[in-house]
């Protein structure tokens, strides 16, 4: 029982990270009907920007943890958003009116470019970050097993929760959110009423990348390491989360993220750690076969 509760906590923390990445996949799919295969690598870039910013802050003597975290968050979100914007501008926008496979190919190209770029700039070896946030709480203890909730986990879950609320509010209540929904439902009609659809698509990439940057920072704090390859595996899992929740659906992305985090954690705990990545891929295949619209997705009846 204690072991189970511990896995639950770990799964929710991991699932939060996947959920934040999954939002980027689902938003871009919703608005241009394309899977942004470079999004996992945007997350990886976010983790590296966070890593470098942490190291710089430590070097110049900013040691107050809340301030450092806040600055890292800002810098990572801003710079990673710029990457997201650039990727859209150079790899997707020029191809928007070409045949359907073209942007898919350039997305994979972008993914490889980002990986190689970080590999060359930062080296191929795993980069460690000294543990910044330590400690935690023992929730309860029995049979020699203590259920722990670490401070990093608290931060991850709290930050994800806060961002999700802010983001949902933005989509539901603001002008930009409404424009994004309009473009998703009928981009041409949106342009007829005066929405600049190119700008709205750009902002979708920017926001998705900023959320992925937060996920990158959290990943870094959680695992304490980053390398140029983390974007691929995390990206596939987050993509699976988006498909499982119903691609195009924002609550679905979050729900899918949590489920994938839980599945992976329980699989590792009760079956085999070595094959933990297999769990996510197995889920992806099963979902694609038996539940292609996902849990909260709707069948595509309106797409022309």
């Amino acid at each position: 029982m204690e072991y189970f509760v511990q896995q639950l906590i770990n799964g929710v923390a991991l699932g939060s990270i996947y959920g934040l990445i999954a939002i980027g996949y689902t938003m871009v799919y919703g608005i241009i009907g394309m899977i942004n295969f470079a999004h996992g690598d945007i997350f990886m870039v976010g983790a590296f920007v966070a890593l470098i910013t942490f190291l710089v802050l430590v070097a110049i003597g900013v040691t107050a943890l809340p301030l450092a975290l806040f600055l890292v968050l800002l810098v990572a979100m801003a710079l990673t958003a710029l990457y997201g914007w650039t990727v859209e501008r150079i790899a997707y926008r020029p191809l928007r009116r070409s045949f359907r496979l073209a942007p898919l190919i350039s997305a994979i190209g972008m993914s490889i470019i980002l990986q190689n770029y970080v590999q060359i700039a930062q080296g191929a070896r795993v980069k460690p970050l000294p543990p910044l946030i330590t400690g935690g709480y023992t929730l309860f203890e029995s049979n020699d097993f203590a259920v722990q909730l670490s401070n990093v986990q608290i931060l991850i879950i709290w930050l994800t929760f806060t961002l999700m609320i802010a983001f949902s509010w933005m989509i539901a209540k603001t002008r930009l959110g409404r424009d994004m929904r309009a473009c998703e439902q009928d981009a041409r009609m949106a342009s007829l009423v005066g929405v600049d659809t190119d700008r709205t698509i750009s902002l979708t990439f920017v926001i998705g990348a900023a959320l992925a940057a937060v996920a990158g920072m959290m990943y870094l704090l959680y695992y304490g390491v980053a390398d140029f390859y983390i974007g691929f595996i995390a990206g596939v899992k987050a993509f699976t989360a988006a498909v499982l929740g119903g691609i195009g659906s924002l609550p679905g992305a979050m729900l899918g993220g949590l489920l994938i985090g839980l599945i992976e954690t329980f699989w590792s705990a009760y079956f085999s750690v070595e094959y933990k990545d297999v769990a996510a891929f197995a889920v992806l295949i099963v979902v694609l076969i038996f539940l292609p619209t996902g849990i909260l997705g709707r069948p595509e009846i309106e797409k022309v």
Partner: protein
Amino acid sequence: MTGPLLKIEKLEASYGHVAALKGVDIEVNAGEIVTLIGANGAGKSTLMMSIFGYPRAQAGRILYDGHDITRVPAHEIAKLRIAQVPEGRRIFSRMTVLENLQMGATVGEPTHFPKDIARVFKLFPRLQERINQRGGTLSGGEQQMLAIGRALMARPRLLLLDEPSLGLAPLLVKQIFRAIRELNERDKLTVFLVEQNAFHALKLAHRGYVMVNGAITLSGPARELLERDEVKSAYLEGGRPAA
């Protein structure tokens, strides 16, 4: 300087290799209701959408208030106060009535919003009753009212309407057409109306054009077109109500 508000000159457009518009000339003067009639597939909707660049003109020009807007992006054209009620209405189906009207006000002054929405609700009280209902769950007639209301939220100078009567019960058609006439007479709104319901459209309009196969074959005062044998036989057979 008092040229037509909208002037379409020798417009050609196509889908892929299939020509849809083959040199169309149309003028709409400020304050007029002008109608374009023609059989299914003649190219009427293509002409309406080509004003916003879907599809882009391959030859010819579109002048609005004397300015060439042939290559202007769609969202910039909306800012010039041209509003369209497109074929099929294209309501944002997962948005509420209120949100659809807010979308219509994209190019409007935020301070005008309360007044403009009150005006739309006065024209179509049914929309106010359904204000928080999703667009996709409205009836066909309500969707048409919403599409017109959405267009009016932009305070247009030129209103483009593509078959607003399609699929509506006769009573509703009457209501919609009365609303169009009211907007034209009271608010001096210029209207360019595409219709398959030629009899009603020619009754309402000042002038009309007939399109066949992507080209204009007839034009003139609406009253005269109503009496032309070509029009009667091709477009009014069976479409003419007994009354």
